[in-house]
């Protein structure tokens, strides 16, 4: 049995190096225990995996590398073993494995990659900046709690969209800072940097409450798209209980108002 600990987050390069070495040495998936930086196992990685890779010539499809880069951002540490097992099976069993969309391992891989994609998308959607004045310059700061290690995946989006703004995105595991020229990362940032209020947020709440149509209540549809786990850091969600509670009455009032119309 071999224990391999991936120290970095999300750790694709580290995993790839270890996986290549194991593959090269013919170590089968059931011979390895994978763990991450939280793992209690000692690092037994040692020198035995540290072999030169120049003779290594197994070609791995781009499709696998692409999906591996996504899945490695998942929070579940089973990802390391799953990725290695799929890699092993692609090499030893069927090079078209990824096309067998109903294979159990492939399905697990797709489920994990979908979860990561969705989590990244939800950052671009649900992250909220608050503005604060910092030495005479506007600084936009957000606190977001992604489910997976997806901050790095969305930084390019925010760089493009808010190129000419100074912004900080704080997450529990890492922060990204943009000063209009460079991006900086910091592990375990101080959440206290996130401002307590914002001078435009009240307008956003006003908008949210009034664009909602109480005559068309579809709570489940809302929850499918915006599950409660995201609510905590979205200011408008504190209005939802009230909007739901008063919807029926507001609709009745609208209809009654129509009846009185002459």
């Amino acid at each position, binding site marked *: 049995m071999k224990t391999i600990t991936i120290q970095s987050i999300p750790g694709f390069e580290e995993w790839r190096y270890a996986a290549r070495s194991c593959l090269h040495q013919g170590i089968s998936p059931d011979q390895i225990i994978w763990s991450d930086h939280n793992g209690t196992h000692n690092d037994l990685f040692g020198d035995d995996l540290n072999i030169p890779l120049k003779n290594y010539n197994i070609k791995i499809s781009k499709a696998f590398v692409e999906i591996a880069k996504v899945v490695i951002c998942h929070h579940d540490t089973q990802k390391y073993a799953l990725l290695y097992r799929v890699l092993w099976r692609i090499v030893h069993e069927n090079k078209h494995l990824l096309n067998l969309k*109903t294979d159990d391992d492939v399905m697990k891989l797709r489920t994990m990659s979908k979860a990561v994609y969705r989590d990244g998308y939800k950052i671009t959607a649900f992250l909220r900046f*608050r503005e604060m004045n910092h030495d005479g310059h506007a600084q936009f700061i957000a606190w977001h709690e992604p489910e997976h290690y997806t901050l790095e995946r969305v930084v390019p989006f925010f760089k493009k969209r808010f190129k000419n703004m100074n912004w900080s995105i704080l997450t529990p595991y890492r922060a990204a800072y943009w000063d209009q020229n460079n991006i900086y990362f910091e592990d375990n940032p101080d959440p206290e940097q996130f401002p307590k209020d914002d001078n435009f947020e009240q*307008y956003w709440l006003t908008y949210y409450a009034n664009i909602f149509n109480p005559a068309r*209540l579809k709570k489940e549809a*809302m929850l499918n798209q915006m599950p409660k786990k995201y609510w905590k850091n979205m200011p408008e969600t504190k209005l939802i209980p009230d909007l739901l509670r008063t919807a029926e009455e507001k*609709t009745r009032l609208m209809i009654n108002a*129509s009846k009185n119309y002459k």
Partner: protein
Amino acid sequence: MSDKLTTKLEILADAAKYDASCASGTAGKREAKAGGSGIGSLTGGTGICHSFTPDGRCVSLLKILMTNYCIYDCHYCINRKSSNVRRARFTVQEVVDLTINFYKRNYIEGLFLSSGIINTPDYTMESMVRIAKSLRLDHGFKGYIHLKTIPNASPELQEEAGLYADRLSINVEMPTQQSLNKYAPEKELGEITGAMSNLKNKIAEAKQSKSFSGKRPPRFAPGGQSTQMIIGADGSDDKIILGSSVDLYQKQKLRRVYYSAFSPIPDASLILPLKPAPLIREHRLYQADWLLRFYNFKLDEILQGTKDNMLSLDHDPKLAWALNNRHIFPIDLNKADKFLILRVPGIGAINANKIVSIRKFAHIAWVDLVKMRLPIEKIKPFVIVTDYKPALYLLEQEHLGLRMKRTEQLDLFSGAHLQNAS
């Protein structure tokens, strides 16, 4: 915080919520230049939903009216002249500030602006264009702008709007002139489609890479145009509605037709129904619209077997078609053309692609269908796979439609059917 601005926002957001569209994609990719004061990007995808309201709708754009004062008296409209709703009017600067500040906080993808008509159509349209122009030129705004144009404003103003907007739309509201006469006496169907046709030509012109002079024509509404019809306020049946959609897609090259189930509005006119139109009818129309645009269905196929030219509320239009065409089924998923696989109720485009991908390397068996999480009860009578063939009586039984209705209802309660109308 200005209380006055809050009140305006309350009134003018409230007035905009009856418009179904909130789409913010399909205008290509772009981003602000570095080093300037520009802001914003379009990702080239379908646009981002930044929030969801308890009506299940996506909040992607700041959707507001510039003003809800109006000189027209359309019965279905909360802002008609004779209604006594609270009125308000934004200044150009207020709309620009709200848009930029919402955008900077990552609340929205851009602005969707419509308006009641004040003074004259041209006067109104000119103010709307000034808002879009200021966003683009004064702020270097690269986010999404959708302008609801005023049909009888001058062609010059419509054209200027197209320079700054990503999408232009004109609501037809009602599918026939008779309905317009009754409910929107100031509106002319000919005028509306005339304006659409003018925009269509401009959009097509701008899409050509180079004109004869060798110069690229200026950008013009790269997201195309869309429209909205109100469902259930007038007596139009689904055949009339979908027929008019087909016309709009073909003749006016519209990107989207939105259907908005009539919803009771405060202070409504007496000639309107008091009850809201069933949301399920709106949903069926979207499903039918989808089949027409992406599944190669023809209108008469969709209407086949319908009662009084109304889509079945019990069955989705694809299932209704299948029940009327049982002789085509069962379909062998290992052999059939993709075209036919797409005709199986319960198998959508994504799963049809999966099936085609898998069968290149392996045979499709029943367990594959289960793993794809296809609605098993629904597809059971209609498909053949290596280890499963439906008993013939399944397709022949009289009550198949009734049984299907029950499975469909289970779907409805799970909320899984709810497509985002945006």
